[in-house]
């Protein structure tokens, strides 16, 4: 849409710190440009507060983060949703969608937020905003306790087990080029890669954080590094215009983190047998 604007410069110049016409026009253009992108639509936060309900969308097919048997819903993200809602003085209402339909559901206002082990996606940021991360599912090194494996350099001369074709496998092939000697042992699952540690077939396993934590439930002696070799940060998602809701969520996440409640929830689902 093209608009024609006729301006009487003399009528507005008295309000500006300079009178030169070109500078006035330049300033007005800057003001107009800086205004582009500002939405006049109302934030959802007032409506959510008034209703007392936070509508959360998720895809309940991803244990242990969210799963349903058709009647019950459980998982880390479900507990976190309840904890966040408590912090905000709200109750939670869950809606289920397929993984591919989550963003459409949020965009069409069927829910207020998505909490479903979702990773920041740069190409979505025109329409959606992401909260601070509540969990990092990135790749980490796992080893037996007497071998402290944290960094790439710690793998020099070692055998590292990986899941064939996985992100960890791709990373290991990159490390292979950086090190003088690295033996990569690809196995068909992350569980088998971790089992290779116990069976002394490898000094380290390079797997995702979730697989590492879940496997450690049956092999508690395994040491999981707290240094991530790649990042896969999980966040909540809101519509871009809902910045007040985002601020409230970030504050609530901060409170849960400070009180230890966030780590307790994570530990409940990743460190304890179910």
């Amino acid at each position, binding site marked *: 849409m093209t608009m024609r604007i006729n301006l009487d410069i003399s009528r507005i110049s008295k309000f500006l710190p300079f009178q*030169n016409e*070109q500078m006035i026009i330049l300033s007005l253009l800057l003001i107009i440009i800086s205004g582009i992108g500002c939405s006049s639509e109302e934030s959802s936060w007032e409506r959510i507060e008034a209703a007392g309900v936070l509508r959360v969308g998720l*895809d309940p097919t991803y244990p242990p983060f969210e799963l349903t048997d058709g009647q019950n819903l459980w998982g880390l993200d479900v507990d976190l949703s309840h904890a966040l809602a408590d912090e905000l003085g709200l109750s939670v209402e869950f809606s289920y969608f*397929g993984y591919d339909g989550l963003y459409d559901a949020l965009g069409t206002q069927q829910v207020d937020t998505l909490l479903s082990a979702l990773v*920041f996606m740069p*190409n979505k940021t025109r329409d959606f905003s992401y909260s601070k991360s509540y969990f990092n599912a990135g790749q980490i090194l796992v080893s037996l306790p007497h071998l402290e494996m944290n960094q790439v350099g710690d793998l020099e001369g070692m055998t590292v087990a990986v*899941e*064939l*074709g996985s992100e960890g496998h*791709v990373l290991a092939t990159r490390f292979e080029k950086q090190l003088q000697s690295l033996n990569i042992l690809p196995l068909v699952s992350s569980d088998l890669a971790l089992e290779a540690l116990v069976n002394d077939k490898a000094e380290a396993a390079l797997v995702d954080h979730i697989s590492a934590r879940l496997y450690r439930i049956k092999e508690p002696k395994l040491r999981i590094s707290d240094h991530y070799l790649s990042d896969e940060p999980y966040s909540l998602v809101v519509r871009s215009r809902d910045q007040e809701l985002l601020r409230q969520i970030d504050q609530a996440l901060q409170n849960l983190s400070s009180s230890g409640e966030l780590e307790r929830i994570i530990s409940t689902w990743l460190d304890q047998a179910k």
Partner: protein
Amino acid sequence: MSDFNSWLTLSRGRITYRAGLKIFLFALLVTFINPTPLLIIPGPQQSVKSSHPILAVHTRLTDEVEPWKIKRTLQMAREMGASRIVEFFPWAYYHAEDGGIAWDHPDLVVEHASTQGLKVIARLGLTPEWARPKDSSLNYLDSTAYDDFAEFASAFAKRYQGQVSHIIIWNEPNLSYEWGYRATSAEDYVDLLKVVYPAVKEASPTTQVLAGALAPTLEPAGSPWGLNDLEYLDEMYSNGASEYFDGLAVHAYGLAFPPESEPGTNMLNFRRVELIRDVMVRNSDRDKKIFITETGWNDHPRWALGVKPGQRISYTLSGLEFAEENWPWVESIAIWAFRFPAPTKSYMDYYTLVTPEFVTKPIYDALKEFSFQDSD
């Protein structure tokens, strides 16, 4: 000091027009000071060495602007053993309303592909703004613009005669989204073929025209999303399509099933292409070849239709072997997709063979090993 004042006069909060102009010109000059870009030359002529010439790969160089990345992509595709690439050349990117065509980018891609010894299957699509109604989508191609599209397709075929062996007319026209958010119509698509095919043949008789690139889908007649590919193809034949294409492009994704899974009219899997072939045979078109221009399995951990990374490798290799042994009517199989210029951070990343940083994934290495089995 007086010199400085002549450049920038600040007086009681005022910047003079002259000083402002000088600052603007200086800023403009600074923006033009850039290091000389590296000259990327195609290099010596190469040839593909592979014991499995059926292997091809769908590159994604459409949005790749750096010449060295274009060269590196095609070099790695050749080193993997792919004999062909499928690449998308959007009409909307190149063709101006006055008839001018910006050939720089397609020239770059085709020249580097030729130097690497790769055959090129070019997919043409996306309508320029000037050739479609206001506010319509890029995939909207009205019959009034068929001649314009034919003009571009024939110019493309003529320019790259001998380098681009095949062109695909449009993409997945049996999906509403790919047909400009309109109800799909095999009749309309055949009308498009009837305009484009003779124009291309006149411009470049050796260029092979591929129809379809049909999307595998079970959508029934009347669905707002699209139409079942088998029904759509049947309707194409009913509308006289057979004389207006030389081969059929097909998309054959394995989804969560192994490649050997039996095909069925009510399911989508790798062997659905056999049902497509049945439609062609039923319509007395058995001599035409099928080109699978998109295939593959996805190993995204969250996607319900994905598989484990190890399965992705084994399914891909056994799918290629299965096709070689059982499908003499399939000319080539292109894996979707070689690499994206930047991560999409979605399940699409889990279709690729190489990361945006050109780090090879294990599936690339497995395909490379497969290609050179029994080769000289």
